[in-house]
């Protein structure tokens, strides 16, 4: 039993790390492409990241709900390309500010980390 417990724990740790970045990726996608449904967002993220990032597409939906609860995105029912009912998500003004903030943070932190990694090489 114990090893199952172990893998389970590491799995939660991974999603935890992913969570913050996933929010950022979703918001960036909506910023670039405008209102989009969940499937579209997943496709776009996978497309851009290529094989580098494997996205468990199911985790997208709790993330979308969370962003909505925080007021950074809003959603409404619309019609997809193939004429099906779908929920479209769009960035709010607050979300746009948040995205700018988080992007800056991300760039700064990754820059610092890069410098540290280079220095210790």
């Amino acid at each position, binding site marked *: 039993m114990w090893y199952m417990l172990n893998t389970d724990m590491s799995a939660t740790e991974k999603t935890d790390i992913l969570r913050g970045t996933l929010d950022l990726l979703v918001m960036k996608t909506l910023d670039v492409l405008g209102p989009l*449904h*969940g*499937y579209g967002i*997943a496709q776009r993220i996978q497309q851009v990241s290529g094989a580098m990032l494997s996205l*468990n*597409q*199911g*985790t997208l*939906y*709790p993330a979308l*709900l*969370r962003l909505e*609860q*925080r*007021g950074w995105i809003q959603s409404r*029912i619309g019609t*997809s390309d193939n004429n*099906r*009912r*779908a*929920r479209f998500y769009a960035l709010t003004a607050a979300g746009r500010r948040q995205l700018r903030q988080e992007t800056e943070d991300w760039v700064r932190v990754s820059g610092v980390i890069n410098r540290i990694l280079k220095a210790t090489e």
Partner: protein
Amino acid sequence: MREWFMRVLSVGRRGARDADLDEELRFHVDELTRQFERQGLAHDRASAAAVRELGGVDHTKQAWRDQRTWLPLEELLQDMRYGVRLLRRSKGLTVAATLMLAATVAATTALFTVVDAVLLAPLPYAHAEQLAVLFEDYLTQHAPNVSVTPGNFLEWRSRARTIAAMTAIDQRQQNLTSDGDPLQVNVGAVTRGFAATVGTQPVTGRLFTDPEFEPGSERVALISHALWTTRYGGGAIEGRTLRLDEVPYTIVGVMPASFMFPTPQQEIWVPLPMTAADRENRTGHTLMAVARVRDHLTIDAARRELQGIAELLRREFPASNREWGITVTPARDAMIGQTTSVLTVMMGAVALLLVVACANVAGLLLTHGVGRSRELAVRTALGASRLRIVRQLLTESLLLSGAGASMGVAGAWLAQPLLDALRPQGFLTWKPVAIDVRALVFSAATALACGVLFGTAPAIAASRANIAATASERASGRRTSRLRQALVALEVALAVVLVAGAALVGRTLRHITAIDPGFQPESVVAMTVSLPPTRYGADRSVDQFYRALFERLRALPGVRAAGAVQALPLSGNTSVRPYHVQGTPPADPPAVAHYRIVIPGYVEAMAIPLRAGRTFTDGDTAAAPLVVMINETLRRQAWGQANPIGSRISFGGGLPPNVTYAEVVGVVGDVRHFGPAVPPPAEMYWPAEQIDAIPGETLRRMRRNLTLVASAQSGDPLALVGSIRDAVRSVDASQPIANVRTLTSLLSASLWLSRAAAWLLSVFGGAALVLASLGIFGAASYAVAQRRRELAVRLALGAEPRAVARLVLAGALTGALAGIAAGIALAAALGRSVSSLLVGVAPSDPATLVGVSAAVAVVAAIATWVPARRAARIDPMQALRID
């Protein structure tokens, strides 16, 4: 913040968004499937891959739902919904448990409101914890609460360093004769230091200034809020004049409604100047002293210093102070007195009752939990953790306790008028006895404590039982049975304690009510008069007033006898002076007796029996030889077996060589002056007209403030009041009467504490006994149900039904007997806490404890009888066929 707000908002709401999510995910999977199909997969493999890519549809839904609401709250709501459904299904359990809790919470809440108002609410003074009431301690007479002499008060005040401010009050009854009908009012003459001691500002106007305490300065007065509104309509008041006993005073302010210094009945305050004569007066005990302790010092520290000062005064003024010390009492204790002990005992009793109720509900839930073991096993199998199940069961018990508490508070709310009606008049509170926020918080806390108390054990037992699951159901049943027996023992033990308490206090009450108070209170009414010294001065005008009045009173139809006294029994007032019997060696310290200044007819009106000699007559005038009556206690104390009639005793409290002797003409029965529970004091009676033989203003002042007593020939003595008032008016038109009360009401007020304690404890004890017997019955019934197969086998193998019944009886009674034993031990240990309520019976009275245990044992046996008979009547064939 916003996220949490949204999540909490959506707790328990399963709406359109959930349905939408299904559609959203279906759309996502369909799109993915099409994508995979485009990449060349067959449809079914493509859709499987799509689901895999999503990470599972149900998993996603669950993660989404977890994000949507706040899970712990959602679960709590689920538990509560489930609990309500379950409690609704087992109606019997719910109703029984709720009612039990409601009744006990109602009792607890109601009592708490009283305790809160009396013991917890702060006194209506700033920093009331610094206030102490000072009395002189008459060391040789064991009388610790005697009024203070002006001389000693001034010495204390000038010497004490621990005291920030000190004031003395001379309480007087005077007639207010301005602005309306003559009214007898309670006037407090206060010394300098009043303002700093009480720390209260008037609602309008100002306090006294220092020059106003100088002798001969302009007369000023403060009035109470009540007097302001009733007599002056609450209008402009400063500068108006009021007349007290014909003397004009200028009103300078109105004290707030909460101000009751030193009693709630106080209506007017005036400055009391201290003269040079007062400084030397260390024998006239007329004042009540109140002190405010300095900041950061305790009353204990002040008491130590003041007792040291009293000791110095004993040495400096041996003539007056040799036998006197000082008593320092915190203001709250002085104000509420004996009520504290009663309330503490009652609160303890109601807490015990609450525990009994909780134990009972716990027993019910325990059996209920065992009945649910199958359901719990299924839930565990489906993945519910043990903690989760304990939590759910606890939620159920909290629901129960919450429902019970709500009903209880509602009950207490409805009972509020009753509570108010039960409160006697003299019961001092400065906060209304009412259910307020504090009471609600208290009952909520009680409910929570109850829920946890009776919920935890059954919840843990039930969750443990379900791990063993149905396989060892019988073993877990046995464990439950043992736990129930333990609960039964607890209930029985506490019931024994409560019933024993009720029995002890009940015996006390019977003891007290059987005591002859020494007079016949039925048919006697009393009221006070207060003759102003301006019109009733040094000449014989007082005597003329009383003679004219009593001539009229005795002639009134319906009046059997009428007289008057300066200190009415049960009124709380008394006066003491030393005495000396002529021809005996002077005692050291001198013997003292309580004295009664009376108008002839007093002994007859009160029906105090005459033991020897005669009572006073109208012939005992100022001009006639001085005469004294004594009571039996004084006769025993001073004469032993000898005949006192004709001997001579000092009149007016003199001691050799300054003594005036009077002849003892009569011996009357003892009167329980301080209430039935207190032994009668030694008493001497002096005729009112003869006290001019003694110099000094004290006795004369008392004579102007007598209490009239009249006994009716038949019927309600209060019916006489109208004609008595008319008689008083016909003698002096400006003379009011006040404080009208019957002696019966005084006697029942003096018994009130014991009576209330006996009633409450009986109710609590009875309730505890009923609850305990229900608990015994439940546990025995459960044990029979549990052992049904075993008992059936025994019967089938030829056991006598009687033997089977005995088996059950023995098993069930074990817990009860253990409880009784523990209860006796506990009652004996707790005995000391009720000893302050007991008179004439010891706290560990063996007869009471044995009787109570026997009674509880009988109740326990009766409660077991029905289940035992059921056990004896088990049909073995039917019982064994069940499984």
